[in-house]
């Protein structure tokens, strides 16, 4: 089954991911790609706390993720890959051609961003980066939970 979801979510591991997506997908492992979290044992312990023991959590830098993507894609189990921002997603997509779909799950308000969807706030530059990913043939859509409609990138950027 491999990686069933490539998700951008600035909260990284949280309820919507572990329960909302994890349950219906029967997820067995979560790959959290974030250079900062990868470098902090304290942050890793914190994120691991939100995950039940039967789900493995793998922390990776962008470099490590690009190298291991093929291994994760060949895994018999179902996995979810998480990044915290668009730049990390773009860096990974550039380095690993396994990235075919990107789920925008939560990018929240910050100075300079405007509301695109209830759970997606983007600067014009960030919106352009998402459109660029789509132009490279990646299926980019926004969907916070599985029961919601997947909103195509053209509708919110």
């Amino acid at each position: 089954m491999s990686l069933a979801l490539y998700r951008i979510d600035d909260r990284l591991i949280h309820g919507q991911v572990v329960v909302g997506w994890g349950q219906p997908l029967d997820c067995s492992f979560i790959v959290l790609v974030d250079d900062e979290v990868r470098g902090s044992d304290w942050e890793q312990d914190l994120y691991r706390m939100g995950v039940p023991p039967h789900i493995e959590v793998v922390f990776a830098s962008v470099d490590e993720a690009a190298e291991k993507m093929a291994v994760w894609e060949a895994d018999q189990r179902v996995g979810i890959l998480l990044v915290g921002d668009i730049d990390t997603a773009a860096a990974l997509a550039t380095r690993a051609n396994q990235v075919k779909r990107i789920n925008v799950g939560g990018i929240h308000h910050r100075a300079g961003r405007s509301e695109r969807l209830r759970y997606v706030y983007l600067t014009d530059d960030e919106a352009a980066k998402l459109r660029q990913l789509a132009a490279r043939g990646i299926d980019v859509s926004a969907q916070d939970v599985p029961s919601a409609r997947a909103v195509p990138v053209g509708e919110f950027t």
Partner: protein
Amino acid sequence: MSDSRPNGSLLGVIVSHAAVAQALVAAVAAITGIEGVLVPVSNEGCGTEALAERLRQAVGKGPAVLFVDLPGGSCLTSSARYAKQHADVAVVTGVNLAMLLDFVFHRDIPPADAARRAVEAGGKAIRVTGA
């Protein structure tokens, strides 16, 4: 949010998904008549930075115990980061009404002690009843 507490008075901040925190504050007030010592914070619509700001405003000058709904997720990660930077802030997860009812009557102790006490009081309330 204005902070009208006397100096050094221990505050409880409930950090939750949706309106759980707000409802717990209202329930404590309805049962005890005590108001102003619990502050609700919801993660609704919040990224990490926005939630950190809500926490900062709610805690004010501290000290405080952060009562978080789940033992993982955005409410916990933001609360744990906040507590890491503030020595007079402690974090408890799995908030329930029973621990809050105990807390509002026992606030003359350090935050870490209040957190331990809350775990005990909250845990005692979880049981199977009936036949």
